[in-house]
């Protein structure tokens, strides 16, 4: 993989087998949405809010709960990966990403941001499990939503690499860059031992750990590219040869 000028690219180092770490990370990740839902609920209980404020807070509670539920659902799915059979099939990533953009747009708009799928001229097919791939992109998008600057657009990108043998689905956010020190720490961690990608300091890396497990189950890999104005989290999967038969 070639790194662009002004960017740094780091593939994910591998799955983490420490169940306790995952459990602690899950608890940590769920604290934030639960704490927010509790604060909003207590404020609603106290009353003295305008109808518009009430409506807005109820919407925030719904959307925050949905994000937390996505994480718990991913955790459950992740824990059952070894037992389950996952059908890999040719998938049109553009169509899948369009569906994801459609589903996530209300959440992004509620946060004053937007999400869009970058257009492509030529159709691509990749080999994946639809459900797992969808979860990975949703996960990256949730991550990007948190780190993107106000009023910015999160972009979902689809690219062909290695003469079309690999298809990369990336989620690009425009937000604060990682400091050089943090990036070095991340690289050291990835080289020394397999660990979740702590690409951003407040993240336990759980979401990325789960995404890496899902990618691994589809013979793919995840990684991150550091930009001067944000980051791209990506999954690389094998291209389907179906189109070449036509």
């Amino acid at each position, binding site marked *: 993989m070639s790194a662009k000028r002004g960017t740094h690219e780091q593939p994910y180092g591998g799955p983490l087998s420490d169940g306790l770490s995952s459990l602690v990370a899950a608890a940590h990740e769920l604290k934030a949405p639960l704490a927010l839902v*509790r604060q909003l609920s207590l404020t609603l209980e106290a009353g003295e809010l305008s109808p518009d404020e009430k409506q807005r807070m109820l919407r925030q509670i719904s959307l925050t709960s949905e994000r937390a539920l996505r994480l718990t659902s991913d955790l459950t799915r992740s824990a059952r990966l070894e037992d389950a059979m996952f059908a890999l099939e040719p998938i049109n990533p553009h169509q899948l990403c369009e569906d994801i953009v459609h589903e996530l747009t209300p959440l992004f708009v509620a946060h004053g941001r937007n999400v869009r799928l970058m257009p492509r001229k030529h159709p691509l097919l990749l080999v994946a499990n639809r459900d797992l791939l969808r979860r990975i992109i949703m996960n990256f998008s949730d991550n990007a939503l*948190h780190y993107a600057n106000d009023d910015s657009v999160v972009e979902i990108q689809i690219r062909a690499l290695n003469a079309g043998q690999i298809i990369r689905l990336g989620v690009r956010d425009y937000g604060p860059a990682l400091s050089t020190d943090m990036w070095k720490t991340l690289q050291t961690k990835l080289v020394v031992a397999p660990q979740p990608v702590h690409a951003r300091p407040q993240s336990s890396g759980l979401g990325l750990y789960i995404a890496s497990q899902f990618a691994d189950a589809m013979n793919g890999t995840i990684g991150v590219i550091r930009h001067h104005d944000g980051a791209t989290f990506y999954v690389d999967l094998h291209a389907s040869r179906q189109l070449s038969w036509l």
Partner: protein
Amino acid sequence: MKKYSVLIVEDDAWLAEQQVRVLTKAGYKATISPHPIAAIKAIDTIHPDAIVLDVLLTGSTAFALLHELQSYGDTGSIPVILCTNLAGELSLDDLAPYGVRRILDKTTMLPDDVVAAVRSVL
């Protein structure tokens, strides 16, 4: 009566909005910075009377900001209230030299606790 200014450094936009709501209702002028870099700029502009600071933030942690604040005489005296999910892992005694005057636990606090904390440090 002086209207005190409070800077909220919080990267969860909706939680920040919630804190602005309760502080504004209590008569404070509240401003949000989503990360430490924005906070440093905001501190220079609005000269807050108190800072409500999350610990795990985008770009760098609260501790980088605390160090920065302590580097200057004027900012070093601004009282800081940490508002975090990691309250159980932090000690007020350890953080007092960095200007931290209160620690609020996001998982157990009541909405008005942030008002009480701000009032207690001003």
